[in-house]
């Protein structure tokens, strides 16, 4: 739904003037006509003035909403503070002190190895003040008003609304007490919060209402399957459905009275059985689902058939398994077309279809997928390339991205991917700011017809509605070893599209290197090579004391092959010492004739970057203390030793998505509120009259 009001709020000068002077004097033959004109002109004037009044009235409303959701008033201190001073300390501005040492890179999230074990390093820094923490909240990424969120659940489109459910802790900014949150949107971008969909109120989900998926039946009926953690912490599968199918908001949900519908089968650990998928329809006339589990260190996908979502028969064996990958969480299994640009319904199969198998690996906290073929008769899926099988090959995203789930959007015939983006900071900061975790911007998923071996992910096109104030930078030349500022105004909410061209002569004559490059061990953007790193410095301050490089690193390998790597470097993203400082990224396929291209969404403490049209993506969380608000800048940088590059960029400011609680008289049916009726009908009439007189 296009929200036209923000544009009007920010630019009231776009309105025609409220008062037009009347033609002076009069000669008798025209007296009567002038009277009529006067009346009509006054009417037009009244129309204009009252329009201004309505607009200003709405400014107050939306302005407050905006501020409520984009500025934290007070940090949430959960414990009783020892002294009054502790509570007020958050309101004092903290002076920053220099940190003299860089931080060690680490491997896993919130691992104690990740942060500096170097306790004696430099002078003390107490950075987290209210201003810095408030800034971290995003403008256009989905997040609840407060507290903890994790996995996306049951995404679907129904009766004109996109629905999103999510794992939520109503009691704090850590995982725990998990229930299902709920929000709706017309366009996957402007979300409105609804009441909790399901809470832990039955013996079979009292210890957790965990992840699940929706299946929409041919008669438009919705069934939801989810995992409950019982009063004895056994993982069981449960059925729920909307209380009222005629309610497009699907506000209330009913749990099937005979739950649970599935319990762990013999031979399966009672705590290794969770996250049921969306069902697909088989030629036998049954619905089929898969559920993740493990046998020792082998991740597996159990398969069940059902006709009514109440009784199930387990198929022999598994859909697929990969040794050494550990527990498979949040399995996703869906078809993609080899030839079309459209998404496919989950039940599709056929000659021009490949099936994607995806698992979230509990052991390493990453989401892996593989392309392959699904044989319905045998009930098995086989990867195209065993070397890059599920869990040992390609990741959706090489940064922070987990528990992802797709759904088929029948509204626009596309497959859309949601992913949970956790924090990379300390729990102390999360408690202070009162929230933790985001969702990535929903991405379309397509088979990459050019490479044939991976998927393409791209932010849904509706995100482009948030674009404002485009700036073009054509063919900016950046020599080796230099940094070029890009004047974009505020640099905390941006959509950046950039293409790079290297000096081809330099690339061709570059020496071959045996270098085994990996973003993770490369030492980041400060380490120079002949043909890289080069890219953008995001969320940087003027002095570059803080910056997050998002960049390419090109290597000439043996035989003259050119390999391109795509990385994001957190090591200097903040002077704070208690945030994750890794270099993330991966090899990205670049085909002959392609320029190097990036798309980067910057939204306060999250940076989502896409290389080569979404072949490789990296989501990064950063927590600068200086490069925030008006001090944040954007730069091009070239830290290669041998090559210059030419970059062409299109950069937009991004508007807020005004994510807020649903209210019946608000933007839900924006087309017909009093303001928009006013704008669409009466204003043009008024303008016409005014122009008629001004002639």
């Amino acid at each position, binding site marked *: 739904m296009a929200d036209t009001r923000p544009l009007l709020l920010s630019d009231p000068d776009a309105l025609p003037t409220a008062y037009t002077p009347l033609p002076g004097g009069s000669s008798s033959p025209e007296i009567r006509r002038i009277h009529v004109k006067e009346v009509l002109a006054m009417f037009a004037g009244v129309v204009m003035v009252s329009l201004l009044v309505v607009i200003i009235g709405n400014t107050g409303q939306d302005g407050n909403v905006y501020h409520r959701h984009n500025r934290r008033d007070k940090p949430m201190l959960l414990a009783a503070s020892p002294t009054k001073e502790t509570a007020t300390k958050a309101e004092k501005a903290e002076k920053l002190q220099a940190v003299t040492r860089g931080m060690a890179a680490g491997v896993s999230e919130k691992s104690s190895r990740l942060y500096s074990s170097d306790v004696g390093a430099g002078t003390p820094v107490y950075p987290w003040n209210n201003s810095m923490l408030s800034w971290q909240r995003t403008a256009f990424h989905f997040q609840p008003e407060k507290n903890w969120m994790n996995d996306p659940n049951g995404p679907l489109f129904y009766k004109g609304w996109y629905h999103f459910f999510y794992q939520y802790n109503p009691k704090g900014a850590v995982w725990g007490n998990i229930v299902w949150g709920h929000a709706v949107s017309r366009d996957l971008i402007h979300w409105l919060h609804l009441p909790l969909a399901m809470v832990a109120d039955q013996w079979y989900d009292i210890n957790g209402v965990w992840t699940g998926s929706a299946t929409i039946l041919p008669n438009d009926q919705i069934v939801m399957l989810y995992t409950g953690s019982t009063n004895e912490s056994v993982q069981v599968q449960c059925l729920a459905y909307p209380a009222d199918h005629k309610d497009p908001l699907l506000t209330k949900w009913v749990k099937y009275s005979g739950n649970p519908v599935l319990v762990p089968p013999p031979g399966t650990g009672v705590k290794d059985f969770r996250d049921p998928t969306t069902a697909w329809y088989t030629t036998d006339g049954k619905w089929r689902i898969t559920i993740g589990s493990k046998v020792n260190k082998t991740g597996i996908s159990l398969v069940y058939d059902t006709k009514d979502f109440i009784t199930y028969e387990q198929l022999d064996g598994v859909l697929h398994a990969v040794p050494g990958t550990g527990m498979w969480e949040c399995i996703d299994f869906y078809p993609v077309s080899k030839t079309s640009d459209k998404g496919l319904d989950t039940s599709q199969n056929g000659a021009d279809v490949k099936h994607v198998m995806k698992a979230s690996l509990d052991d390493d906290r990453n989401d892996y997928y593989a392309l392959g073929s699904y044989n319905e008769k045998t009930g098995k899926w086989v990867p195209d390339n065993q070397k890059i099988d599920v869990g040992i090959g390609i990741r959706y995203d090489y940064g922070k991205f987990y528990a992802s789930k797709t759904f088929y959007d029948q509204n626009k015939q596309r497959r859309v991917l949601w992913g949970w983006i956790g924090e990379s900071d300390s729990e102390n900061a999360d*408690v202070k700011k009162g929230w933790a975790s985001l969702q990535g911007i929903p991405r379309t998923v397509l088979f990459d017809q050019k490479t044939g071996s991976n998927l393409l992910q791209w932010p849904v096109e509706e995100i482009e509605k948030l674009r404002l104030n485009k700036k073009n930078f054509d063919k900016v030349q950046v020599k080796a070893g230099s940094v070029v500022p890009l004047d974009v105004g505020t640099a905390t909410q941006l959509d950046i599209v950039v293409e790079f061209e290297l000096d081809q002569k330099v690339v061709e004559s570059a020496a071959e290197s045996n270098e085994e490059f990996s973003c993770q061990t490369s030492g980041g953007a400060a380490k120079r090579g002949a043909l890289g790193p080069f890219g953008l410095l995001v969320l940087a301050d003027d002095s570059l004391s803080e910056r997050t490089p998002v960049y390419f690193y090109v290597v000439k390998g043996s035989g003259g092959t050119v390999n391109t790597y795509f990385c994001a470097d957190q090591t200097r993203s903040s002077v704070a010492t208690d945030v994750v400082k890794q270099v993330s990224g991966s090899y990205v396929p670049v085909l002959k004739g392609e320029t190097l291209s990036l798309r980067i969404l910057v939204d306060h403490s999250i940076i989502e970057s896409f290389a080569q049209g979404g072949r490789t993506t990296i989501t990064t969380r950063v927590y600068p203390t200086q490069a925030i608000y008006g001090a944040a800048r954007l730069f091009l940088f070239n830290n290669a030793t041998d090559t210059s590059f030419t970059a062409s960029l299109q950069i937009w400011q991004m508007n807020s998505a005004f994510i807020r609680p649903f209210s019946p008289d608000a933007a839900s049916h924006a087309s017909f509120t009093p303001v928009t009726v006013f704008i669409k009908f009466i204003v043009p009439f008024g303008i016409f009259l005014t122009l008629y007189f001004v002639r």
Partner: protein
Amino acid sequence: MKNLMCLAAVLIFFIQTAILRTEANIIAQTCQKTPNPPVCLSSLKSDPRSTQADIYGLAIIMVDVVKAKSTTTLNQINQLLKQSPRDKGLIDCADRYNAVLKGDVPEAYEAINVRRRMFALDGMNDAVNEANGCERNFAGRSSHPLTKLNKDVADVASVAAAVINQFG
């Protein structure tokens, strides 16, 4: 008859020691795979429940120890704050231990009970980071009363994380 009773007593003795050795073995094997086996052993052995515990029970015991040491540390911080109420380092430390006790420890308990290893790890790894974060606030000061306490918390929390990591 007397011989039979002697035999029974000896048998019971050997069976007991065999059982005790097995239980001791679980503790020893678990602790060997932690970054600080001595701290692990002393923490577990000082809790009588450890002899009957499986890996999940041992993890709970370790989180108990983390909670106890964090509480002690926070109490000490509050005492010090009474004398130096504007000390930014102490204030930050209080916030960090507040986060450990109100966030990390409950998260770890719940996650261990329902065997969601990832979230239990988050809790204990963060506890290590908060303890280290507090200690960094006093870098450069010659000595201060929290050093040993911070180190204790970091030690037991990293052991707890290593025990959690061993969940099957």
